């Protein structure tokens, strides 16, 4: 592992994007940033502009309105970058998977590095997910796909 990779793993600045979420996941993200969980221990910081960000924490099923803005945000974030979907909604749309008003999941808009499922996920799960996206901890669950029986 070279020095720059090490630096990237030890210092990850996240930018929080609400792409049409109900605010449940946003509140859990804020919980993860409180002194109780103290993400600064791991070098994680919340930044306020995508130019400073290393990771986009996206919540919500990506509504049609927010799709363009999300793409612009992604372009504004300098390489190398991570995209992390927080909650059930970015993970395939959640209960909005077939709604006309949403795109139906973050994976249809941006290349996602990791999904953190849960409605909403616990702050511990969000921390674990970010650490897993960086390759610091092992994967615990794997995606399963199945087709509906017609």
């Amino acid at each position, binding site marked *: 592992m070279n*020095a*720059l990779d*090490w*630096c*990237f793993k*030890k*210092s990850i600045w996240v930018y929080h994007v609400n792409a049409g979420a109900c605010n449940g996941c946003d509140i859990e993200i804020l919980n993860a940033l409180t*002194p109780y969980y*103290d993400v*600064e*221990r791991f*070098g994680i910081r919340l*930044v*306020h*502009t995508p*130019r*400073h960000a*290393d990771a986009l924490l996206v919540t919500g099923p990506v509504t049609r309105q927010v799709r363009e803005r999300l793409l612009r945000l992604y372009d*504004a974030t*300098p*390489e*190398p970058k991570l995209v992390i979907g927080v909650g059930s909604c970015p993970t395939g749309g959640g209960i909005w998977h077939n709604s006309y008003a949403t795109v139906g999941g973050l994976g249809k808009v941006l290349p996602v590095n990791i999904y953190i499922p849960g409605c909403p996920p616990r702050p511990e799960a969000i921390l674990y997910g970010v650490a897993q996206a960086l390759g610091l901890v092992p994967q615990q669950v794997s995606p399963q796909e199945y087709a509906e029986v017609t």
Partner: protein
Amino acid sequence: MSVSAIPLAIFYTLVFPGLLFTGLIGLWLTWVDRKVTAIVQSRVGPPWFQPYADIGKLLGKRMTIPRGAPLLGFLGAPVLAVTGATLTAVIVFVALIRPSASFVGDLIVLVYLSALPAIALIIGGASSRSPFGAIGASREMSMVLAYEAGFLLAVITVMIHAGSVRLADVHAYQAAHGSIAGSLSGLLALVVFIACTQAKLGFLPFDISEADTELIGGPLAEYSGAGLALFKLARAMLFLVLPTLCVLLFLGPVTANVASILGFLVKLLAVLVVVILIKATHARLRLDQALRFFWTRIAVVGLVAAGLALLGL
């Protein structure tokens, strides 16, 4: 200057006590800052290598240049900030380790050079073609005018005491007559100096131009990658140099024996902790409140200090 002195000058500027030394120690001190803040907030705080990882990561990222931004201003500003911080560091530390090499008037030069990072921030913000950068630059401009007056008055008080504009003479004066902060005017000037240090470092309650929560970083909002890293480095270097200057100007001499050097480090740490505690326990002031604070309180106290110093108090 003779030709043989040039390699030494380059060494002073780039390695010790210039860019490399001040940068490494200054970055480590920003960890002290973050750790003390974390303790105040009942947290654990980041590991000791955190600032180095941050800078390393920023250097490894791609730098985005906003469309239509003037390249000289946008790319030159971070370099100017680091240059200003480096030269300030060299003058302060050379006066400390080799008093014979310091020149007449270096205190005045210091006042100007230590303002360079703030001026770089104004240039960078104004040329970033972002409303956040423009607002941040204009706020920084108002702040510079306000706090430089107080800073200058504090330094003038010291000059009147020592009867010289040379840092090494201030040092010699304190070795002979005790620390300048021991007198009434010196004490007032010390308070003024610390308030202005807080503003020069862009720390709460005076981080008005950057204001993460309202201006998303102000002049820094459009900087990414190496540009941001250089601004952070300049800030970290000032975080070492300004408290060191504060100790040298007000809190007594340091000589080449172990007890004196330990005393110097303890005083430096004390000044740092005062600055950090002010930062960790205060909310941000509005621009008008900060300007009123500096013009009607700090500048007046600075004038009183200079007046008392003229009377010999």
